């Protein structure tokens, strides 16, 4: 561990965190673009989410009379916790100190911290929609978080480490082997990612004024720079899950040293992987319909079951082998 606790490594870790913040809106723009093309529309340019963010930052903030101080602090806490969670996921190189600072369980914990404040902010103004969104978000997360932990525990156990960098390294060392536990974990993680980032079929990111919305209902009262932070945090979270799936299950291309050249290759590889995942997500969202809220528990229990099967598959079948 010591060998990468240098100042240079911390510098690269900071650069990686900035990459997340810069690329996340572009990923969302790319998914929207793909979706538009699939629906025979031209769609907005890929940098449109960035334009939206910058425009929101310049607008004045309106805060309800009934809001407390928590309402104004929450966007910063949500954004920073999500951003730090993302910074611990290896993007271009697997040898950064951030993964040792906060392992997978801390990653899940940081996302839970962000969600906690997001839900509280939803309840703060005292409107009906905010409470509804918070209640539903906590239902979804209460079911999704254990499924996510089961999936990452499968990875952690097979790598004998909860350090995400070690997990990636052990995946690389294992090579292309088809293991049942990993397949189950991948399936579980995809279902969780869909639910946690509020995509179809669990939630619809482009809906407003609907009784079915979850995430949008919580941030309904936000405006200006507060809204920009909330939106940005959601975009980073989407990218986080994308990178997690891409780099843990398909780690090829990621750099294992701090050489600028190999890190550039790693960055290129991850951008390509994310672009591919974006096309898949856009295609899935085009063919699927959103489900009723009370179908979501069945969906997430399936994720939990898959995660548990992956873990059991590992401890029963693969430990000795």
């Amino acid at each position: 561990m010591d060998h990468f606790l240098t100042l240079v490594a911390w510098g690269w870790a900071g650069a990686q965190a900035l990459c997340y913040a810069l690329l996340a809106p572009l990923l969302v723009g790319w998914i929207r673009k793909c979706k538009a093309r699939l629906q025979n529309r031209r769609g907005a340019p890929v940098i449109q989410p960035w334009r939206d963010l910058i425009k929101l930052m310049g607008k004045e903030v309106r805060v309800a009379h009934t809001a407390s101080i928590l309402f104004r602090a929450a966007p910063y806490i949500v954004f920073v916790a999500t951003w730090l969670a993302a910074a611990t996921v290896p993007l271009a190189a697997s040898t950064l100190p951030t993964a040792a600072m906060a392992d997978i369980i801390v990653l899940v914990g940081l996302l839970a911290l962000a969600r906690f404040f997001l839900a509280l902010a939803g309840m703060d103004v005292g409107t009906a929609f905010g409470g509804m969104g918070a209640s539903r978000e906590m239902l979804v997360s209460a079911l999704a978080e254990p499924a996510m932990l089961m999936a990452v525990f499968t990875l952690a156990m097979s790598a004998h480490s909860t350090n995400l960098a070690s997990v990636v390294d052990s995946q690389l060392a294992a090579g292309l082997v088809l293991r049942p536990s990993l397949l189950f974990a991948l399936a579980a993680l995809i279902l969780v990612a869909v639910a946690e980032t509020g995509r179809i079929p669990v939630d619809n990111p482009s809906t407003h004024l609907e009784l079915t919305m979850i995430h949008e209902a919580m941030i309904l009262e936000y405006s200006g720079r507060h809204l920009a932070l909330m939106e940005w945090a959601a975009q980073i979270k989407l990218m986080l899950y994308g990178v997690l799936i891409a780099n843990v299950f398909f780690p090829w291309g990621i750099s294992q040293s701090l050489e600028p050249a190999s890190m550039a290759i790693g960055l290129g590889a991850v951008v390509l992987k994310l672009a591919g995942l974006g096309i898949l997500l856009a295609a899935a969202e085009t063919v699927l319909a959103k489900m009723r809220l009370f179908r979501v528990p069945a969906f997430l229990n399936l994720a939990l079951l898959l995660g548990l099967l992956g873990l059991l598959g590992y401890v029963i079948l693969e430990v000795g082998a």
Partner: protein
Amino acid sequence: MPLVSLAGSAAVGAGLTALWHGGVATVTLPLGLPWLPWRVRIDTLSAFFLAVIGVVTIACGVYGTTYARGLERGRDSLPVLGGFTGLFVAGMLMVVLADDAFLFMVSWELMSLASYFLVAFHHDQAANRRAALLYLIMAQVGGLAILLGFSVLAAYGGGFAFENMRGAHLSFTWASVAFVLAFVGFGMKAGLVPLHAWLPEAHPAAPSHISALMSGVMLKVAVYGFIRFVLDLTGQAYWQWGVAVLITGSLSALMGVLYALLQHDLKRLLAYHSVENVGIIFIGLGLSLLFLSTGHVLLAALGLVAALYHTLNHALFKALLFLGAGAILHSAHERDLEHMGGLLRRMPWTGLFFLVGCLSISALPPFNGFVSEWLTFQTALQVWQLDSGVLRSLVPIAAATLALTGALAAACFVKVYGVAFLGRARSRHVRRARPVPPGMQAAQGMLAILCVLFGVFPTSVVAVLNAVPVQLLGRGLPQITAHGGLWLTPVAPATASYSAPLVVLSLAGMAGLVVWIWRRGAARRVRRCDPWDCGFARPTPRMQYTATAFAQPIRRVYGMLFQIDEGAEPQADGSARYHLQVGDRAWGLLYVPVVSAVESAARRVVRIQSGSVRIYLGWTLATLLVLLWIIS
């Protein structure tokens, strides 16, 4: 009350000193029975629990001085409250110091009886009297089981001193009999499912700082008794025990949090969360036993440290939350969440400290509850080292339960904080709540600061806790400080590491960066306006989500686990009235059958009660003769 705080500080001092030195000190007091003087002993385990009891006692003592003044009305007398509080704390401290079964049981009963009177303090309400009676019965049944457990050990060890018991050699059967008795006895006091049903009745009935002591500390004394009995006195471990503890712990954690989610009485909700957290502690202990029985002493030490850390954390944040609930009760005279709202603006300090408690109990980084759950997960993740496939597959299921529990706890505390402190007041007296006096705020603040400190500097805490497994299991965690105080590396640096100080620093640094950019780039005007709420004009406080509404989706998903009586009756004026009653299934499954069995047995026995003194004397004589015949 100040005296109670002093006793607490003395306990903290003694406990910390003993933990640091890691030695054992024994004293024999010239008290007790002639052939059995009271033996007192302090080792690292009792020192740790001494310190935990002490910290919470200090806070509750400071808090109680002010809080009790608000209770003074009618027949409730403060000297009674103060006296029994003192006896209660003394009982708890003596339990952890006792070195023979006799003193242990005497102090245990002192603790139980003193707390009975504290539960019955507001005895003018029938529900409180009923709760106190139930509590007394359960405490006595539990005490009986513990007594029998000690007798098994004493019979083999040849004496009631713990020293003799340690030397006893028991067969698996007898050791298991003793284990089951101790598990039932201590588990009943600790509130493990399915023996927990008394706990949410009794704890909320007492004054709030006593609830904090009972939930925060008295349950821990039961945990202490269990660890002392199983890991120290029997000196053996079998995987069957580990499995039993693990399954009971997981069930308690899950059922505790699910029942808590459906409560809307704040103190009752907190009491159900104690069931959950005791379950988490027993998951750690179960893992420890499991690894100990299979010869993985290092991992057993890790499980024990995780359990002890959670014991400490739960004592802190549960006491903090109960004191917060007491503050709301003190200034708004309200325990029901459905009538609260907007308290953050009325009581900002209490609101801040309560938020820290909520974040800690929901196991969110960088607060203390997260560290102990992290350690428990790390222990569970080492399960691949076990040989048996059945055990290997059992532990992940327990880990899944723990993960579900954590997520549900977060949902529950979003509900509590969102409904009570955020939004708008739902009743007039809550709208007029005032901040509580500084003494009460100081007690909450102290506990909140400790919650943060124990979350941000876990390495130092674990390094101190490490003395307990070193003494008890003969081996500690050698790798904890392998990379200095910044990194918590319980097993090995390559396996898992967590650096809470760096996480906090990064969070602060990133927040600073964002604020700096915002200051330069973004528009800074903030305008106050009416809520938007999708264009609905002027929403009233009654349109907010209530606690029941918040938990409704979860109630629907896990409906089969509860006894739910729900419905709407049409009223005379054409409106409808909705009612919802959530019952605890443990009542119907365990308590009601036992009660009816006792009642039918009593009905049979009552036949010999004729009211004639001569017949009673006849019975007495006959009993005496039979007993003499048995003895001779």
